[in-house]
């Protein structure tokens, strides 16, 4: 915001005949509390609140984050809660000025965390114990998962995958517990002929383009990632997988792997989520 802009802090709801449906459009004013800039997002009167939210993130040049805060400036009510409401109805019922406040987390890190070596026997025992405990509950079998062991530290879990249109397939997920459970297991999608990592084709899930707003920000699939050690390899990247830390990816305190709190069950839950609607888009071509 410039000084000239700052002179006008009146609530700014605009109606005009531009675009939109149902007789014009409405402008939502968003004060970005992170950088102090003010944005105007224009949506058709009959469009849902979600359209304005999408427009906001497009202007911000980033996707939505789980920890973001977007609220009505007057009522302090959470905006995404009303995402399905028509914007005109939302204005009438919830936020008369259509004036929102946005904030999101920031952070940084100096680089790769120190990932120390683990005792292989202890790591293998811890991984097997947690997998046994998970399977003993019956949940994995109910979800169609099967598991088998490659060697003391490595297991393969066969997981079903379903896309938004209900088409089903399956993937082989290799878990490597070489740093377990101080760190999460390494996760790789592997080919059944060799149990070596796939980086495309039938055994690699479709990697959504970064511009896809439905792609969860907590998960990334990199067919070939340039690691610090100079050995490019596939990276299945989320906070409950070892590669995430080896690649120095973001690790905010609320998602970071915590020994004793997280187990391989959390890792598999996350993989299953990405292999389900709305995220899973089929196999890579």
């Amino acid at each position, binding site marked *: *915001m410039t000084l000239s802009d700052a002179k006008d802090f009146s609530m700014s709801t605009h109606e005009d005949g531009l675009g939109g449906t149902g007789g014009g459009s409405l402008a939502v004013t968003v004060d970005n509390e992170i950088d*102090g800039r003010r944005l105007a997002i224009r949506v058709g009167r009959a469009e849902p609140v979600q359209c304005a939210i999408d427009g906001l993130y497009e202007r911000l040049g980033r996707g939505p984050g789980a920890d973001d805060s977007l609220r009505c400036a007057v009522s302090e009510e959470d905006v995404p809660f009303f995402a399905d409401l028509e914007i005109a109805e939302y204005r009438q019922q919830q936020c008369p000025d259509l004036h929102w406040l946005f904030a999101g987390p920031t952070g940084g890190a100096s680089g790769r965390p120190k990932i120390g070596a683990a005792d292989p026997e202890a790591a293998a025992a811890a991984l097997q114990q947690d997998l046994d405990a998970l399977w003993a509950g019956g949940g994995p079998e109910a979800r169609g998962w099967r598991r088998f062991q490659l060697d003391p530290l490595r297991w393969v879990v066969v997981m079903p995958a379903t896309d938004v249109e209900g088409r089903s397939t399956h993937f082989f997920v290799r878990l490597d517990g070489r740093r377990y459970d101080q760190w999460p297991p390494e996760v790789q999608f592997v080919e059944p002929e060799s149990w070596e990592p796939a980086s495309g084709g039938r055994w690699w899930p479709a990697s959504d383009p970064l511009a896809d707003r439905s792609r969860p920000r907590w998960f990334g699939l990199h067919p070939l990632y340039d690691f610090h050690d100079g050995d490019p390899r596939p990276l299945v990247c989320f906070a409950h997988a070892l590669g995430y830390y080896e690649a120095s990816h973001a690790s905010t305190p609320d998602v970071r792997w915590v020994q004793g709190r997280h187990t391989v069950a959390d890792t598999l839950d996350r993989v299953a989520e990405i292999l389900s609607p709305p995220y899973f888009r089929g196999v890579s071509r």
Partner: protein
Amino acid sequence: MIAIPAWAWKAVVDTFAGTAGMVERVVFLDGVAAGDSAVDGGVVTTVTLPQADESEGHWHVSAHEMSRAGGHLRLYGLTRLAQVHSHPGPWTGHSSEDDELAFSQAPGTISIVLPAHGLTCPGLGDAGVHRREDRSWRRLEHDEVARYVKVVPSVLDLRYQ
């Protein structure tokens, strides 16, 4: 171009050096924008210290704390012009986390990284100065820095003694 008054830069360095414990720290440089876009720069008037979760290798400011750290921007009509954070060693590059979680991804945004937790009284020449370009962050070459960010005198005493 962002103009940082010398007093403001000193406040940043003093803040980092005054840290109890060897942890990464962050401050934001707020001020009067020269235009509507981050590429326009501006003049720093205010050094903002957010309530951050700080550790040896990471720093994190929650959305709630970013909201608290941004209330004065609306109140005084200011804009966040840059962020400054410290690294523990001599490396002043941008990690992937620095890239992803910087305060803004708007082209022209400036992020400054100080070495050694800022304990060596670093100047801009010792820092890594990073600029968000259209698609990614880029570290500015030393001879480029002054085009985008500069420390300017706060007081000039030109009187003959």
